[in-house]
């Protein structure tokens, strides 16, 4: 399984852009990169997925370089409600069949 490495924690002020970088050196050809968000006492929630280059949705952007050994989740203009744990995952074969979460990055947003 492709292991991911990401910072344990990050702090940001409200209104700033936050970039969380994840490394996944052993990613395989058919794997996708996917990010989830988890609030306390809730299950994880899908944010975004990508295979290469850049993907953007209404919540975030995901940047993936050509070698796909890393990825960066970008959250524009964070608010207090973005305080959560963010997980970077490599989805085997591009499916959700066996997601490996790791410990995630705990993002704390303050005023």
């Amino acid at each position, binding site marked *: 399984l492709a292991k991911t490495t990401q910072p344990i924690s990050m702090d940001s002020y409200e209104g700033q852009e936050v970039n969380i970088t994840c490394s996944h050196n052993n990613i395989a050809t058919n794997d996708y990169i996917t990010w989830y968000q988890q609030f306390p006492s809730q*299950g994880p929630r*899908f944010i975004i*997925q990508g295979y290469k280059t850049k993907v953007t949705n209404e919540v975030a952007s995901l940047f993936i370089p050509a070698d796909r050994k890393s990825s960066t989740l970008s959250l524009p203009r964070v608010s207090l409600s973005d305080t959560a744990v963010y997980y970077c995952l490599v989805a085997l074969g591009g499916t*959700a069949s*066996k997601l490996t979460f790791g410990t995630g990055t705990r993002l704390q947003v303050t005023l």
Partner: protein
Amino acid sequence: GAGVSQSPRYKVAKRGQDVALRCDPISGHVSLFWYQQALGQGPEFLTYFQNEAQLDKSGLPSDRFFAERPEGSVSTLKIQRTQQEDSAVYLCASSGGQRNTEAFFGQGTRLTVV
């Protein structure tokens, strides 16, 4: 339903007791997953169903853990002879949406074994 529903939300069991945790996936979702999340850790995969077939149970920690989905919709995770190390949040998720790595998680069942 609108989302994945799990019951009970909280369960306290005495050591040695059997427990059953229920998951109602999103209607029409073919895939269903169970995860275990210890305090301060990320969720860990337990098992995966496609319809009623259990395709992967490699994450079940011991033979005390058993999961079923007999009609391809509702699933039950059963833990026999609970032990203190079984205390965790048990998360159920289902998948079947357009984005292929997107799984929809329930709020989980917090199991405390005393």
